[in-house]
C-alpha cells in the first residue's frame, strides 16, 4: 500500500473545514428563517 499523498491530505483537510463551516452556516440560516417566520407572523 502506498503512503498517503500530503497534497491529498491537505485537500481533504480543507474540504472538511469548508464543509463544517458551510454546515454551520446552513444550520444558522435554518434557525434564522424559523425566527423570522415567527416574528413576521407575530407582526401580522
Amino acid at each position, binding site marked *: 500500500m502506498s503512503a498517503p499523498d500530503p*497534497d491529498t491530505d*491537505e*485537500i481533504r483537510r*480543507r*474540504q472538511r*473545514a*469548508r464543509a463544517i*463551516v458551510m454546515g454551520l452556516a446552513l444550520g444558522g440560516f435554518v434557525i*434564522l428563517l424559523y*425566527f*423570522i417566520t*415567527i*416574528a*413576521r407572523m*407575530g*407582526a401580522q
Partner: protein
Amino acid sequence: MTTTTATPRTLPAEWRDFVELTKPKVMRLVVFTGLCGLLAAPVTMHPVLAFTAVLCIALGAGAAGALNQWYESDIDAVMKRTRSRPLPAGRMDRESALHFGVGLGIFSVLLMGLATNWFAAGVLAVSILFYVLVYTVWLKRRTPQNIVIGGAAGAFPPLVGWAAATGQADLLPLLLFAIVFLWTPPHFWALSMFVRSDYAKAGVPMLPVVAGVGATRVQIVLYSLPMAAAAVAPWPLGLAGAVYGLAAVAFSLIFLALAFRVLVNRSAEPAEMKPEKQLFAFSILYLFVLFGALVADKLLMP
C-alpha cells in the same frame, strides 16, 4: 483586467480566504452606519428582523467586496497594501471568488426582501451593483473622480437600514447618505496621498497621482466644508437633537482643522505626511462618533 493569478494553485481555498474576500475591516463601518440608520428610524423593529436586516447589509457589503477583489486582482497584485489578498496571493481561483460574490449578493438581497421589505432589498441591490459596476468596473481605472461618484456606494447602508425599518426613504436618511458621500473623498484622498506610489504603480488614476498632492489638498478642504454642513444640518432642521448637534459641531470643527493642516502641509514625501495620516485616522472615528451620537440622541431624547 487580466485573467491570471500570481501563482498557479491546485489546493481548494481555505474558508478563511472566503471571509477575507468580504473585506471584514471595511464591513465594520458599513454595518455600524447601517445599524445606526435602522436605530435612528422612528419605527421600532422586531429584534430578529433588525438583526437580519443588519446581517443582510453585512452580507451585501461582503458580496460587493468579493466581486471588487475578483475584478481587481491584477491591481491588487502590484499594490503593497493588497497583494496578500487571497486572489493575488494565489490562494483562491478567480471562478470561486466570482461564484461566491454573486451567490452572496443574491442571497443577501432575497433574505432582506423576505425578512423586511422589498424597497430595502432594492436599495441594497442598487448599492451592491453601484459598488461593483459603477465604481469598480467603470470609474476606478478611468477617472480621478472615481471615489467621488463611487463614494455613493458606501453611503447606502444608513439608507438601507432606515428603509428596512420604515419601508421608505425620508430626509434624515438622505442626509446621512450625503454625509458619507461627502466624507468619502477627504477620507480616501488623505489615504491615497501617502500611498500614491502604490496607486501610480498599479495605474489607478487617483487624484494625487493625476493632479498632484497640492491640488488634492485643496480638494480635501473643498469636500470637507459641505460634509461638515451636511453633518450639522439634521440639528437645525429639527431631525436630531442637541446631543447629536453638539457632537456634530465639535467633531466637524476638528475634522475641518485637520483638513486645513493638510492644506498647509507642503511636503510630497509620505514620511512627512503626518497631517494626512491624522486626517485619515480621525475621519474613521468621525463617522463612528457622528452616527453613534445620532442613535444616542434618539435614545436619550426620544
